């Protein structure tokens, strides 16, 4: 009895194979790739704690440093992500210092090119921001903090919502990477 069941199953498989082959127009079948490869995840290794310099807005409308010790990886993308995570979390010494980004923002993506330009993509503001001071603090707080903590990076362009912008509040030229600018850091 079992051999009959096996024979029927084999015949069924053969029929499906023949049908598939005919549907292909009689051409030789093709290789099937492993199309569902799982993403390769790195083995997590704890990064050593290092001091980072983060810049936030002070009561004088200038950038003031706040020092923090955090696990800081060597890999430049991860390093930028750590700096941005700490910046977006806001200052610990509030209310002396205020956040750079006046809305709930997250870092969407980080790109780094071979010339040392970093592109950080932030959540777009939910409504228009205003004031050159707001714009300068946000831009140079982010740009300076990244460059001061990531020696590989020489300039930073900030994208919003996945787009390049000419300007955020109608003043500063954000259409290209900005270099370190210490003029907006308060003299200690």
């Amino acid at each position, binding site marked *: 009895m079992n051999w009959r069941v096996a024979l029927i199953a084999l015949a069924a498989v053969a029929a499906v194979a023949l049908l598939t082959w005919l549907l292909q127009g009689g051409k030789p079948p093709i*290789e099937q790739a492993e199309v569902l490869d799982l993403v390769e995840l790195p083995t997590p290794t704890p990064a050593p704690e290092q001091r980072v310099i983060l810049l936030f807005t002070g009561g004088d409308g200038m950038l003031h440093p706040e020092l923090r010790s955090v696990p800081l990886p060597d890999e430049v*993308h991860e390093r930028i992500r750590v700096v941005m995570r700490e910046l977006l979390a806001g200052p610990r010494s509030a209310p002396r210092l205020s956040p750079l980004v006046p809305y709930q923002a997250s870092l969407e993506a980080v790109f780094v090119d071979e010339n040392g330009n970093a592109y950080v993509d932030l959540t777009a503001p939910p409504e228009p921001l205003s004031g050159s001071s707001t714009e300068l603090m946000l831009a140079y707080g982010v740009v300076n903090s990244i460059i001061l903590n990531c020696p590989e990076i020489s300039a930073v362009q900030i994208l919003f919502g996945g787009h390049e912008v000419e300007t955020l509040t109608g003043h500063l030229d954000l259409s290209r990477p900005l270099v370190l600018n210490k003029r907006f850091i308060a003299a200690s």
Partner: protein
Amino acid sequence: MRTIQLIFITLALGAGLLPAQDYDRTFEFHFDQQAIVVPKFGPKVEALPVLELLGAEARFSPAAGTYGVVYGEHTIQFAVDHKVLLVDGKLREAREVPSASPGGVAVSLTYLERWLLSPLGFHLEPIPRGYRIVRGSRFADPVSVRPVAADFGTTTTLVLSLNRDAAVEVEETEPGTITIHFDDATPQLDGSVPFRSGRVRSLTSNEQSVLVKLAPGIGLISWHPLETPPRVTIELGPARPTPTPAPARAPVVTSRGPQPVVIDPGHGGDDVGARSPAGVTEKEVTLAVARRLARVLESRGRAVRLTRDGDQGRALTDRTALANRLDATVFISLHANASTVASVAGAETYYMSLDGASDEAAAATADLENRAGLSSEDRSPLDLILWDLAQADVLNESSRLALAVQGRLNARLGLRDRGVKQAPFVVLTGATMPAILVEIGFLSNPSEAERLTAPENQQQLAEAVAAGIEDFLGR
């Protein structure tokens, strides 16, 4: 064996082992003697198997949050749900985004060909059940285009430096628009050098051309393709009258007259700028102070033009272009500030900063010096060097103007002195005369907002700025 594999995927789809609602179809991709079946995910296809078929290394970087593709000397970085990507180190913006998919990342066929295959030197050709990947980019090899402009008197030289030889044709496709056609090359504008010309409003590129929008009254005079290094020089100047009789139309500038002071009330139209706690907008305050400033200067015999005399929106570059076209003595952009910190107060004055651009600009000038092969009718490289020196002079004069205005604001109004600063502001870019942006106070500060909206204080502000301008012009 191959047949059984195909049966497997067919049965797997049918049995729900692969999500049938996602993988509703498959495509075959053929390359050389190999072929694969790639599931279609909605309107998109899994990208990684296609790249792996070519032998490209494609993997997700959890640190970067991006997918990286390496193929020979080419690199591509792209991310799920992001239009921007890095192709060979250059930031590009696609028209659509990659999506997360069971296999990692899925892209449309258009995205696949334009952004993942073309940069590696391949394109797709349709076959009955899918596509064959063929060597050779359907999109022409990109050519990097770096624009530099120099204004001389009534003419402007626009130099487009190319990173390789490319055949081009330049024509004025319509009044005020110049099209630079590239044969077999996709131009990619390099914006690393800040663009400084009041006669060129914008440059944009598409698949095979660069479009140059000119300020009103400016047209194409001549153009020359040049070699070593490859570049195109385009001469711009006052638009030639059309040969056919045109209906009478008032020119934009009715009279040259004396050189005016151009005052730019910041923002306008839909762009309201900052807003005080009481709801007064920056665009209202800047217009009110600008009108008062104009009256004060006119009462002292100065010619004055406003970039807007009502609640109109104006592009930032148009404001500077107007000042350049009128050959203004000085350009004053008036703004009221806002900070996330309510206590911040005071006035400050900005002039242009070329931060990060100095080296690039110097390099661009050096490039332009390398014009030994030009014919005698072409402009001497010395002119461009002189132009660069002139820009340094404009910056120096701008700093003196800024100091004069800030000094008067401090002396007359007793505002908190936030000083003179430099920043790469869009509205100051390209100005060919001393140009400053004055932040007359913080609307976000409640007490300062009250002062900024009071007519008597607006008049005092206007008189202080006017006194600073007179100090500078009467030096």
